[in-house]
Structures are given as C-alpha cells and as structure tokens.
C-alpha cells in the first residue's frame, strides 16, 4: 500500500479531491511538544522567566544543593567542600553525592519519597490547551478556545519550569528534543486513511508509526516535505491507530482510546521511550498548505515522567528539584487509578504537533522490489 501526500483508491493525486474512494495521506512530524500555555503579563515577553498569569510566583530556580544536603543532616563543612573547585574538579569526584538527599542519606533519584519536598511553583492560571478528558466541565482549566473542563494537570505541574515554558516552539526543552529529532534520533510518522473524501470522512483512522529514515532539513532549516519514510514495524510500543472523523479538514478522535507514539529518543536528557496516552483524544487540522497540526491529549503514566528527570544533569539544566517534581506529579495525578490502592497512576496531558506531507512506505512496498513507480491515470502512481 502506497501512502503519500494523498493517494485515492490506490492512485496518488495531489490536492483535495471529492471522491468516495479509499484514500491515504501521510505526514511526518516536524515538531512535537507539551502543550504549554504561556501567559506572561507582558504580551511581548519572550523570556521563559517572565512573570505572568500562568506563573505569578515565577519559575523554578537553581537548586540549593548545600541547603538540601544540610537539611537532611550532612555536616556543613563537608558540604561546603563539595563546592571547592579543587575537590569538584579532582579526578574521581562523584556527583552522585548530590543524590544523597534522602532523610537518611538515601539516593533521591531512586527513592524520591525519602526527600524533603520543597516549594515548587505550579501553574495558577485559568487557561490551558487540552481536552475535557473526564467529561466533567467543572474540573480543570478553561480551554484557550473557551472550552470548559480542560484537563491538563501535566501542564499545571510542569508549566512553571522555565525549561518548558514559552510560546509555541520556543521552550528550551522542546527545542532540545525536537532538534534531536531533526538530527535523526527518531522519526514520527502519521498515516491518515479513509474511504470517502479526505476533507470530510466520518470513518477514517490516524496511525502513529516510527521510521528508520531520518528527517531531511530544507533550505530554511525546517523539515522538507514530500520525503518518503519506511514504517518501522519492529517497535509496536510506538504504534497506535485511532479512529477519527474528518469534517471540513478537522480531524477528531471518535472515542477516547489508548494512543501510543514516540516523542523523544536517543539523547541523554530524553531517552527513547513511548508516550502512552490513556483515554486519548486528538484534534488536528489539515491546513490549506497541506500540513497537519493540532493537539493530542490523554492520561499519561506519571512515574515515567519523573524517572527521566531523576538525575543530576537535568536538575541543573532544567532547574528541577527532582524529588519535589515526584511529589507534585503524584499529588496532581488525576487518571487511571490503581485498582488496589486507588492511587492515580496517570496525569492528564496535552501535546501539540506540526507535521508536513510525506510518503509512508510499508515493508510490502520495499519487498515488492518493483523499483519503478508505474504510471497510472489520473495523475497517480500505483
């Protein structure tokens, strides 16, 4: 099956056609990030540290490791020695000492509950991107578009960490992970399929895949459209298929369902791991210039969110007190209760993505070995 910018009934055409034949369109994601609503008091502000309605208490600060270590009983003199350049730069100096912030010297990157919880600024604004995941308009934020009951507790916890705060496509964390994607650490491929009109189809599907083929940059530094990408079937944890409706080019999930995809991979701060959204939903738009962009939402397990941030480097780079993040995530988790303890295992979240037209190539296509595409009527190829 050939999946391209638009193939209809096995024939690939460009442009939007009104037809009642099976069709397929593919996209490759050129940017994906947590859907943070940055709401500074100064509309012109671009600094992630700018105070705003979302974070009136400001953003997270550099960790005070000496204080934390002393608070749990380390003696002041030995702690101060950690900051002696001769000690710190000496061969064999082990930064793991900064993890010993448990009340009894435990490693807080393994046992965060042993740490003291310190103040951790969280979003206090009223607006957010996302979906009404619990179908209760009384819970959560008001959507940026006015929708009541938008659940995005992940944003509430993470939105005042300066590393993740900012206007769309500007936050440092998003830049870091997307640059990693642009440089080839992973590729996220979307395949939209239906049986009626690609702009209006009540029974279409949107599939998430990974590809072994790297993104290609264009001359403007963006991601070039219309490149071909093989579907990697060897990683089912990064794949999912969502029934959707399409109305006037707006793609909506039909029912809440599990969505699995890859949104990070390969680099030290954000290693490859699947993003799983339980009771997931999506709303994406087919733009006039052929792109696909919009929101995904759902409840993602909160423990993995903390685990990738349980290290000294990200604490320093992103200014996150890792154990305090653990406490905040646990406290704000709002979905998928553990059947035994009742503790919520997931946290409502939203992500936004932008994708450009691409061609998806299945293993069958590659194995066919026909090489040449064959001319077909109506401007298509088989």
């Amino acid at each position, binding site marked *: 099956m050939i999946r391209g910018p638009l193939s209809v009934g096995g024939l690939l055409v460009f442009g939007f056609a009104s037809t009642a034949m099976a069709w397929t369109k593919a996209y490759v994601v050129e940017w994906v990030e947590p859907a943070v609503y940055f709401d500074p008091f100064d509309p012109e502000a671009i600094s992630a540290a700018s105070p705003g309605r979302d974070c009136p208490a400001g953003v997270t600060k550099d960790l005070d490791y000496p204080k934390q270590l002393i608070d749990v009983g380390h003696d002041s003199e030995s702690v101060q020695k950690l900051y002696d350049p001769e000690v710190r730069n000496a061969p064999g100096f082990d930064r793991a000492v900064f993890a010993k912030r448990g009340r009894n010297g435990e490693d807080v990157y393994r046992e965060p509950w042993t740490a003291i919880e310190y103040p951790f600024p969280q979003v206090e604004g009223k607006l957010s991107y996302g979906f009404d995941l619990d179908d209760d308009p009384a819970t959560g934020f008001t959507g940026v578009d006015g929708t009541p009951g938008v659940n995005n507790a992940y944003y509430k916890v993470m939105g005042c960490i300066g590393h993740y705060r900012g206007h769309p496509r500007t936050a440092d964390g998003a830049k870091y992970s997307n640059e990693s994607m642009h440089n080839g650490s992973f590729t996220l491929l979307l395949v939209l399929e239906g049986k009626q009109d690609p702009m209006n189809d009540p029974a279409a599907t949107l599939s998430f895949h990974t590809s072994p083929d790297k993104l*290609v940059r264009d001359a*403007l530094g963006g991601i070039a459209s*219309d*490149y071909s990408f093989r579907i990697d079937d060897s990683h089912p944890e990064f794949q999912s298929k969502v029934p959707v409706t399409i109305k006037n080019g707006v793609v909506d999930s039909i029912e809440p369902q599990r969505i699995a995809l890859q949104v990070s991979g390969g680099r030290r701060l954000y290693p490859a791991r699947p993003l799983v959204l339980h009771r997931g939903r999506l709303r994406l738009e087919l733009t006039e210039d052929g792109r696909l962009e919009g929101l995904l939402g759902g409840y993602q397990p909160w423990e993995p969110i903390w685990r990738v941030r349980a290290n000294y480097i990200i604490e320093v780079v992103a200014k996150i007190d890792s154990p305090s993040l653990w406490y905040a995530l646990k406290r704000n988790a709002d979905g998928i209760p553990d059947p035994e303890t009742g503790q919520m295992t997931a946290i409502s979240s939203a992500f936004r993505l932008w994708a450009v037209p691409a*061609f998806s190539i299945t293993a069958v296509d590659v194995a066919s070995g026909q*090489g*040449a*595409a064959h*001319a077909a009527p109506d401007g298509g190829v088989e």
Partner: protein
Amino acid sequence: MKLAWSTATRALLSTACLLTACADADRVIGDPGIASMRRLTESEYRHTVADIFGQEIEIRGRFEPDVREHGLNALGTANLTITPSGFEQYYAIAASVTSQAFDEARAASALGCSPPADGAFDANCATRVLERYGRRLLRRPLDDAELATYLKLAGETVDTFGDFAYGMRQALAVMMTSPDFLFRIERAERHPDDPRAIRLDAYSKATRLAFLLWNTTPDDALLSAAESGVLHTEAGLREQLERLTTSPRLSDGVRALFRDILQLDQFSNVTKDASLYPKFSQVVASSAQEETLRTIVHHLLTQDGDYRELFTTNETFIDRSLAAVYRTRYRFDEEWSRYTFPDSEERAGIVSQISFLTLHSHPGESSPTKRGVAINEIFRCEETPDPPANVDFSIIQDTENPELTTRRKRLLAHSEDPSCAGCHKKLDPLGLPLDRFDALGQHRRLEGSEPIDVSLELEGVGYEGATGLGSALANDPQVSHCFVDHVYGYATGSWAETGDQEMIEEVYSSFSERGHRLRALLSALITHPDFFRPNVPAPASRGETTASLTSNREPLENPK
C-alpha cells in the same frame, strides 16, 4: 618544506622550458610537430589518477577553471594555459597524490620492486618505476632524455633523504606537473607510406580514444596497440574500438560527454531563493545531475536506444531527494529506482527533468527565455546573441500589470519590441512549453489563479507542453546534427569547420541510418578516415611548400 619548494621550482622551470622555445621544447615541437594541446579537465585528471594510482587516492585541491567554447568545455581546453597559482595548485595536488600512493602502507606494492633496505638509490628499480608510471601518466613511453631527468631528480632526493619511496614520489609529482601530463598533446608524424602526408602518432590516437570513450588515460592494452603500430591499421583500430565500446567503462566516457554538452558543471553556480524553493539543496543539485546522466547512460548504452528518444522518454531514475521534489514516493529498494513519470506530470525527456529546468531558470522563478536559449544552444547548436544593451525589461518585470497577468503574456508583449523580436520569436516557443515546471522543476498547473498555457507554434506546427516540445526536438534533424557536431568537437577538441563538413555529413548519415544509436555514431566517427587527421598544415618536404601538398588525409594501412 625546502625540498618542496625546490621540486616545485624544478617543475616550474621544466614546464616553462617545455612551453617556450628552449632547446628541449624544440625537440617537442619539432618536425612534424604538435598538432594540438588540450589541458586535462578536472574529471579527466581524477579518472586518470584513479586508474593509475587507485580509486582510494583522494584528490584534494582546486583546479583551474574551464572555459566553454561553442558550448563545450572540451573545445575550451584547447585554448587554456596554466596560471602560476594554478601551477602551484597542480603541484600540490600531484604531491598529495603521490604521497598517498607511496605511503608506508602502499609503497611496496606501488613500487613493484625491492630497493635496498638501507634506503640507497637503486637505479634499476627506479627505472622500472618511472617507466611504468611514466607510460600511463604521459600516455606514451618516456624517452631517454626524460627518463634521465627524472632518474637524476629521484636519485638526488633519495641520496638526500635516504628514502627510496620518497624519491619516487617526488619524481612522479614533478612528472605530474609537466605539460606532457597536464595537457593532452597530440603529435603529428610523417606517414611512412607517403612522406608528403602526416598523421597523428599512435599514442595520440590511443589518447584520443581513451579520453573520448572512457574519460581517462589509455590502458595498457591501448598503449600496447599504439606501441606495436597495430592501432594504425583498420583492423587494429576496430579491435580497440570494439573492446572500448563494449566495456562497462564506456559509461564513464558517455557521462563525461553529456556532462559537457549539457553544461552540468554550471550547477556549481546555481542558487535558488530558499523561501520559494526550500527543497533545493546541494544534495538535490547533485542528484538531479545524476538522474539525467543515469537516464542517458541507461537509454543510450544499456538499452541501445535512439538518441532522439532522450527528448520523449518518460523513464528516469530517482533517489529519495528527487522523489520528494517530484512529489512521488521512493521505494527504498535501491539507492536509485527506475521511475516512469505519469502522464499527468507532462514530462518528456531530459529537458523536463530537474537538472535542465533548474539550471536554466532564475533563482526565484522559471525563465522561458533562458530555457529557450539553452535548448537552442545545447541541442540545436545555435548561439544566441546577447540582448541589446538598451533592452527594456520593464514589461517582463511588471508583475502588477492587470493586462499582463502571466509570464507568457508579459513575454509575448515584450517580444513585440522590434529589437527583441528576432530572438524571442525563435526562443520563446522553445521555452514556454516548459513553463508548467517551476525554477526547481516542480510541476504546476496554475500561475496565480490562471491555468498556465503551454501551447505554441513553431515553424507553422502547433504543439503543447513538454511532450509536444520533446516530439518537436526529436523530429528536428538539426538536433541530431548538432549532437554529431558536439561529439566531434568533444573528441577532437576543435569545432567542425567547413573543411570537416564532408566527414560530419558522412558520420551523420551513418548515425541516422543506424537508428541514431550512440555506439553507431562513435563507430562511424572513429573509423572515419579523417577522424585522426591532424589539424596542422602538412610539413613541407625539401623543395616543396605546404601549399603544394595535395592532401593530408591519412590513408589507412591495409585498407579493406
């Protein structure tokens, strides 16, 4: 460093001597003399080094720029010299090549003989090395004087540095800066059966054949055929022709030929407005050239197809980057996949491929005029005069004119200017049919909101779009004639003059009768009695004048 300057100086003096009328040069250009000198192109240089020293040798450096004449760099090479800075570059490249070829890992096999372990100079071994490499580098055996010169240089270097391989690489680096290497020097000699006639010597013939057909220096078999004199015989020539044209390496020669004809070297100057053509990159530019050359080699050699079908075929090859530009999928089954353009793409032949369409466009928009000029020059061998100095482009540039809302309308209005009409009425019908392809060769149907009109009339015959243009070019005898002219010019380094027309016509007839197959054309050209005729006046014998000679046409020995 001191030695490097020393050897460079020696080479410079050697070159200067050979290029001027010093005693040694007298020997070179003496009776009957040099028929022609053509500076090696970068491509010829690279292939030569790869053949002699190995594919793994890297060539690092900047080459002197080529000059195009009558549409061919091959013709410009006959009128090129080497600048002092260019000479330094050639020396640096040569030194780099020989230092790689005779490095510690390769020296033993590169030498092919075993010099004394103490680093002393071994004249026998050095002679064998210099004769073996010299024969391939200079495309003929070294004469005694040359051998003595290079031996002396090698010996002094070995004595100074106590390193035999180092001495060899210095001597060969100097050899690679001699005009006999950097220039393809064709020499004439008296015909043994007719002292009034001259002919190219056998090594010059071998060189012409090797560079035409394989784009490289003659191999051992060809040099042996020259050495034995069998290349002067019709049977010997045909044997080599058969060997060379049935070899896979013929594709190297054909690629170089078409790279020159299609002016693909101009891609180094191509830029595109990134905001309008973000897909353009050096990768795309490189792939686009490869697409066209693969199409040509596949059609003309693999398929043994009709040359004229290069203007009508919808078969091509694409890689991942070109598939994105053509907006089709790339199957990943191999690096280059065969691809058939669907009819809806309206593509026909190499003029509708990305390479031609991109090369002959402006950075920000397509140009029917530039495309028309290119078609007229490249495929019809008609040069276009420069526009008048006072030409008024305002109509073309005024994209806000409510009456002239398309390129076509503006161009046709511009061509009403009497000072422009002569050229535009000839060129625009060649370029406008391609206007459904933008400056990157991407297909389009609309200009703004208006459909792009690609219907034209040329010499009373109407045609439409790239497919119509392709058919028109394929059916135009001037296009096939032009190709014969280009192959002749590329092979000989000289543009066909009036005196060559009889040969050109005979070659064209053979090409035409044999279905416009490239191998037929090459065979007809190379076996034509005049193909190896030196382009110099025949030498005057004692008591005669040049003007009194009746013919310098070379009779083939053992004619059948």
